[in-house]
């Protein structure tokens, strides 16, 4: 999946944000015309794969290809001639990258943080993107980095989404540490959006293990206090557990810790490791074949589900896990990073299976194999 395209800019003096159109009858204040020739009308920019001699609006010319853009997609255009896709109208998986800064440094981070202040730029970008998003957008994810590092901008962003997109589910991925300050949780509650849910990782029941995994002292205590502060205001919470060599040994204890200390969580997700970002670098400390943690995973999932909690398994393949867990497995991987092995093509469960991250194709369970329906009938 292509998310950026580059061309030769003309007349681009500032950040431009707009909606893609190729329909010549379609005109508007926020539209960007895509076509070899300019279409006279009220567009804010023109994108072309051809050379453009003279133009009356900011233009990016000589772009290699624009096929990845659909009418209705939202893009940003910079002075550097880069056209970034910020919202894909035909996708269920749209993410707002709030910042690449982070106060943790997880061993298995899929998107390693950057220590530069991108917040004013990104806030300005999304301040302009959000009003353009279709009102029937089902779900938006706010991710990072650590989104709460935006400080007051974080709340302004959420207020804007709440106002502009009242029917959209908002899923915020945060480490929850900032909410150890009660006033921060209280401020979030004031937004009063019942469609908002926070996904917060808890990797162990014991602080030393959790702090080691997230590479931050005091993180466990802050996250747990944060979860309690958020629960006090009735904010909807999801607990996210990544499965790897460091989290597996205490997984059963973590399940019981969640039930006893965080029973207000609306959803608990167990997630397979992503082979990208920091993970390849730390692979010796992290890798365990998912087949080899089936016992621990089954125990944890069935305990929590048995106590009435809503449990899901993400980033996992059906053929690797015992059949009793299939009902918990979700097709969770965003379309643009989802793939299957060649062997999977023969599998009768292909369409029910979440498959793999594209980047996990080169590091995956040795037990992936096609499931055939008749085998399936025998075991069920």
């Amino acid at each position, binding site marked *: 999946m292509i998310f950026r395209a580059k061309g030769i800019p003309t007349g681009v003096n500032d950040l431009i944000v707009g909606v893609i159109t190729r329909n010549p009858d379609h005109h508007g204040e926020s539209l960007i015309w895509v076509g070899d020739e300019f279409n006279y009308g009220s567009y804010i920019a023109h994108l072309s794969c051809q050379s453009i001699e003279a133009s009356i609006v900011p233009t990016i010319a000589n772009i290699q290809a624009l096929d990845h853009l659909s009418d209705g997609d939202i893009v940003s255009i910079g002075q550097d001639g880069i056209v970034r896709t910020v919202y894909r109208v035909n996708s269920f998986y749209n993410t707002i990258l709030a910042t690449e800064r982070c106060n943790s440094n997880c061993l298995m981070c899929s998107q*390693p943080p950057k220590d*530069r*202040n991108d917040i004013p*730029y990104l806030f300005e970008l999304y301040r302009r993107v959000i009003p353009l998003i279709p009102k029937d957008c089902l779900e938006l994810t706010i991710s990072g980095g650590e989104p709460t590092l935006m400080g007051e901008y974080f709340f302004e962003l959420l207020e804007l989404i709440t106002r502009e997109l009242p029917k959209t589910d908002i899923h915020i991925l945060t480490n929850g540490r900032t909410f150890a300050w009660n006033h921060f949780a209280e401020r979030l509650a004031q937004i009063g959006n019942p469609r908002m849910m926070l996904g917060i990782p808890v990797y162990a029941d014991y602080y030393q*293990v959790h702090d*080691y995994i997230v590479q931050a002292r005091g993180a466990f205590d802050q996250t747990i206090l944060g979860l309690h502060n958020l629960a006090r205001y009735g904010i909807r919470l999801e607990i996210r557990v990544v499965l790897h060599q460091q989290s597996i040994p205490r997984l059963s*204890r973590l399940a019981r*810790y969640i039930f006893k200390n965080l029973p207000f969580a609306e959803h608990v997700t167990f997630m397979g490791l992503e082979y990208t970002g920091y993970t390849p670098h730390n692979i010796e400390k992290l890798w365990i074949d998912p087949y080899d943690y089936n016992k621990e995973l089954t125990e944890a999932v069935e*305990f929590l589900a*048995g106590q009435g909690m809503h449990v899901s398994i993400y980033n996992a393949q059906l053929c690797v896990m015992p059949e009793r867990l299939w009902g918990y497995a979700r097709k969770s991987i965003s379309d643009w990073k989802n793939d299957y092995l060649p062997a999977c093509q023969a599998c009768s469960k292909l369409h029910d299976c979440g498959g793999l991250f594209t980047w996990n194709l080169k590091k995956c369970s040795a037990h992936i194999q096609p499931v055939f329906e008749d085998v399936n009938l025998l075991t069920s």
Partner: protein
Amino acid sequence: METLSPRTNRKFKDIGYYAEQQSNYFLLPFRFHRLNDDKEVLVNEVGDHLVVPLGTAGRIIQRQLSIEEDADLYGDLVAGFFIAEQEVPALIDVLATRYRTKKSFLDQFTSLHLFVITLRCEHTCHYCQVSRVTTNKDEFDMRYEHINKGIELMLQSPSDYLTMEFQGGEALLAFDKIVYAIERTKPLAAKLEKQVTYVICTNLAVLDEDILAYCKTNNVLLSTSLDGPGFIHNQNRRRPGNNSYELTIKGIELARKWLGTGNLSALMTTTNLSLDHPTEIVDEYFQQGFRSIFLRPVSPYGFALKNEKKNKYEIERFINFYKKALHHILDYNKRGEFFREEYATIILKKILTPFPVGYVDLNSPAGAITNVILFNYDGAVYASDESRMLAESGDFTFRLGHLDTDTYGDIFYGEKAQALSEVMVNETLPGCSECAFQSYCGADPVHNHATQGSVWGYRPTSTFCQKNMELIRYLIELMDGDPQTRQIFEGWISQRRAS
């Protein structure tokens, strides 16, 4: 774009770096108890437990644990709120929230209101000291003005959820008065936005379809007595014709046809005869389609007062009976059936869940007054069902007042209630205050008074203590020893299986 003054660097550090650099740890409140020859159990202030090798509590207290050599145990103790690395741990508020949650059954105050609608009965059960075989309604049925006043007091309860339970005698002998009471309550409760659950305790002998039609329309639940198979039930529950069992089974079938299986429950009472037949009783419940059974001990009022030796022997017999029955129930579960024992379920909920368990006979503060109140057929108000049993033998210790003369305040906050509340909290009772099972158990001043002549009670010879200590210990031991049993128990407490 501005580069921030970065963290020192983003180089990965080893796990050792993330241990608190403390030379020593601090103790959080916890208690302990020997489980068997190899193990002991630690229980923290909010009821989380940890089974450890014998001698571990001593090592913890003498600061002999090492974060490196006992890494797993050390982690369990910190994660489980047994020890802390700061004098006031960072997560102390989590512990406070958990404590508040456990005791939140108190928040709503009294919910269960027992109306002894009549003392008349057509049974002469040998363990019942209160009922009368008579047709004298004037003397033994609750009078309308007392029903009215009882409803008035009930609706003054701060609780939004009330249970109005009609008892006897045989409550259905005064069914007209039950209808009167429900019809009077309905509009008044609706005005106050209180939800009322109606329950009739009945032996089902005089049940008919008119009664069931009314129950169905008004969502009235039925609670009956089934002591086991016919040869036990009919022996325990005497009536002319010696056909109590047959009438009960017929009643159960009829009631289920009208109300569905979920709206009829049964209770068993253990007698001397029952003690020899644990498996037969369990099988009878299963065969009759029940998927739970409540193995209740012999009522203390059948005990010889102050005969400690005999009482100890009796409760040992009950414990043996209970264990045999429990194993038989577990066998059903191991064959894939769902079938649970209710007393174990109550205790297991206290051991395994963070939620409050509002069972009136095993709570601290005790359920009497705070959770249950009884309006007797003659207008007297008692702290619990057992309190009025005592009264029938001339002991009015737990009579809190009378519907003719006393106000809500007189009854629920009067001198008697205040005096009683001193002995209703096991956290402050001698022998309970340091007990590992404190948070799983309760205080029962009525039982103490009836069996030991003191509302405080004396733990070393208390049958209440003897029974609960052993049953709680045994349940923990079973779970620890067998993962399959643990899974079955976790199924019994499951929030999914609201029975």
